């Protein structure tokens, strides 16, 4: 099926709204990874996080491009100028973090979820979208490998285990909104085959995979929270102040010159 000729306008709007959330996930997570540049635990890890950040920005670009074409916007505006309340990313990826264990915990939780969601798009029947999702998915195995390596190594010392357990306890409840897309909109996409599976139906699979992988950690409460109602639903535009701070950080005050990011309105100026 082709998006432009076979889908009606309402459905294209729903597809664009869905992909905007996927793109926001990648953009925000890519930015958080980039914050490690020059601060990584080792030079090798610094380079690796920067490379993963670039992967995420590349994936964000794939989906923002489609959305920009559809809504008549451009990449800079979609990626840089939208304020926190306009964003649809999961609150999992927006958290500020100074502990490397947070990065490992979020990377793992996010990657396990994104793999499922991208498969739902890649196995859908709209070629323009499934090809983009398959392309993004093909780079994810490395991110998973990176997460697995560190999950297995940070537990080598008591301190590492404690800090990783704390980081996972924080990350898991915030992942509760990952699959929490508006049911009516996604049902329409599933009925027409744009998505092979409804995001809500992928959630049990994610919970099972995460519970199995993290079985050695005392995370019962955090896993319950991850399976429950989200405290904040990023898919509905609910976000923490940390996202405002991150976006404001992209737009320093006193910015001079003609640049597309000038259209942004800082949170502290609103």
């Amino acid at each position: 099926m082709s998006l432009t000729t076979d889908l009606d306008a309402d459905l294209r709007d729903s597809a664009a709204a869905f992909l905007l959330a996927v793109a926001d996930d990648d953009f925000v997570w890519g930015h958080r990874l980039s914050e490690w540049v020059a601060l990584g635990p080792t030079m090798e890890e610094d380079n690796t996080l920067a490379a993963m950040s670039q992967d995420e920005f590349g994936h964000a670009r794939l989906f923002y491009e489609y959305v920009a074409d559809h809504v008549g916007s451009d990449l800079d505006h979609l990626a840089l100028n939208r304020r926190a309340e306009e964003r649809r990313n999961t609150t999992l990826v927006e958290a500020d973090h100074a502990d490397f264990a947070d990065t490992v915990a979020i990377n793992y939780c996010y990657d396990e979820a994104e793999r499922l969601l991208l498969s739902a798009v890649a196995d859908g029947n709209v070629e323009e979208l499934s090809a983009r999702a398959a392309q993004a998915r093909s780079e994810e195995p490395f991110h998973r490998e990176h997460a697995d390596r560190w999950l297995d190594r940070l537990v080598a010392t008591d301190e590492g285990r404690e800090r990783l357990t704390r980081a996972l306890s924080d990350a898991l409840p915030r992942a509760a909104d990952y699959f929490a897309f508006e049911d009516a909109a996604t049902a329409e996409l599933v009925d027409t085959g744009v998505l092979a599976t409804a995001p809500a139906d992928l959630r049990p699979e994610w919970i099972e995979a995460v519970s199995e992988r993290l079985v050695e950690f005392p995370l019962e409460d955090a896993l319950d929270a991850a399976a429950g109602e989200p405290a904040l639903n990023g898919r509905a535009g609910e976000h923490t102040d940390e996202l405002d701070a991150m976006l404001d950080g992209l737009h320093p005050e006193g910015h001079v010159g003609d640049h597309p990011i000038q259209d942004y309105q800082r949170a502290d100026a609103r």
Partner: protein
Amino acid sequence: MADASEGERLTPYEAERGHQDVYEVFVQWQRGKPHEHAETVNASDPDMALTLAKRNIDLRSDPVDIWVAPRRAMRRVSPEDPSLRPSTDRSYRQTAWYAEHRIEVEE
């Protein structure tokens, strides 16, 4: 290179805190060509070294294969090693020597 962790969970790495080894990274850039030394990475163990090496080389050049080896497991010669320099002229061992020292044979 086969990944030792494939299909099975690694046991937690039991090294002293902060222990790192130096690993030499060799990359094969083209099928059929030799692996070339590309860089050095610090890592806790060989699997981590390979993971880090993968994102510390130029992926845009489409590498075919990567090897990592701990430097402490490698042996090298010193540039001053006398065994690298033959003590006598051995050019006669090469066929070119005979072309340069052609002996005219009279009939």
